[in-house]
């Protein structure tokens, strides 16, 4: 935590991390103490903290207790708005990625329902009449797809595409 405060003071955190840490810091004694301490060290190095320097923050905050709390709408181009937008974008991206992964997992999962159909297909392919019919169809389509230069892929696509048909025929 203290190392993050050190980075925060040096403006080395991105806006989101900065925003999150500042939120955590405000009102937390230990964090505020480190924030004050680190700034004081900088003040001394730069010669800003001189004779008579005392911490006035408690007095000032006590006076501010009497002041009404400021509450203005967040502007579109403000840092908070940007941070919220970043978060929305990140959440959206995560949701899209999760959906894609889900689709991929479902698509590539072995389908238990297809197993008996594959068996039926194997049996069907063993039938010489069906093999003949299927081969004629493959040759016919193969001639068509060859002109597109998609032989390997198209043959596979045809085979997969005709699984349902062949199963139907076999039944």
């Amino acid at each position, binding site marked *: 935590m*203290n*190392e993050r405060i050190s980075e925060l003071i040096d403006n080395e955190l991105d806006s989101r991390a900065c925003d999150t840490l500042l939120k955590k810091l405000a009102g937390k004694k230990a964090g505020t103490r480190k924030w004050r301490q680190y700034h*004081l*060290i900088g003040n001394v190095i730069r010669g800003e903290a001189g*004779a008579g320097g005392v911490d006035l923050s408690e007095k000032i905050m006590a006076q501010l207790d009497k002041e009404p709390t*400021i*509450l203005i709408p967040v502007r579109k181009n403000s*840092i908070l708005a940007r941070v919220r937008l970043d978060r929305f974008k990140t959440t959206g991206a995560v949701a899209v990625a999760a959906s894609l992964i889900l689709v991929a997992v479902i698509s590539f999962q072995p389908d238990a329902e297809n197993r008996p159909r594959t068996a039926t297909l194997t049996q069907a392919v063993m039938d010489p009449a069906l093999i003949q019919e299927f081969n004629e169809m493959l040759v016919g389509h193969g001639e068509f797809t060859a002109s597109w230069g998609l032989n390997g892929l198209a043959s596979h696509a045809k085979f997969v595409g005709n699984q349902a048909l062949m199963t139907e025929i076999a039944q």
Partner: protein
Amino acid sequence: MVRDENDLALVRHVQGGNKQAFNLLVQKYQYRVKQVVSRFVKDSAEQEDIVQNTFIKAYRALPGFRGDSAFYTWLYRIAVNTAKNHLAAAGRRPPVQHLDGDGMDRTRGMENLVDTNSPEAVLQNDQMIEVIRKAIHNLPEELKEALELREFDGLSYAEIATAMDCPIGTVRSRIFRAREVVGRALEDLEEEKIR
């Protein structure tokens, strides 16, 4: 130089109703504001009053702060005006020199002002500053150099890494370790005061 995005983020937090976020701005800038005020008023008690008024005024005016200028530039103007108004109300004239100067000479024009700092306050403050200076002086050379390049020269970690010919992670760690060592010395002093 590193841009100060913390200030804007803190301002937006305050504008969003988080009053405590203003405390972080006070802690960050109180000494710098006091230094500005000390160009007008030498009396420490008066300086403190003006510093407090500056921050109260800044808080009240914060809803109107749009971030067109840096927060400190905005705060600086409030501090200068508050100090001038204070002197005007007391029937005194501000020192002619350095009203908008860069603060390199902080004592000119203040010879006739009375210093009413209590000896205890001066002693306490001097002790604290002395402890920090001594702790910095005793730091291992690479820690001291990294800290000073950051705090005095205002270099970013990447610039310090180039200057010191080491990875950025090392710079980050050196600066943090330096602060921790000095911070511990300050805590020891505070504990001694309590005893």
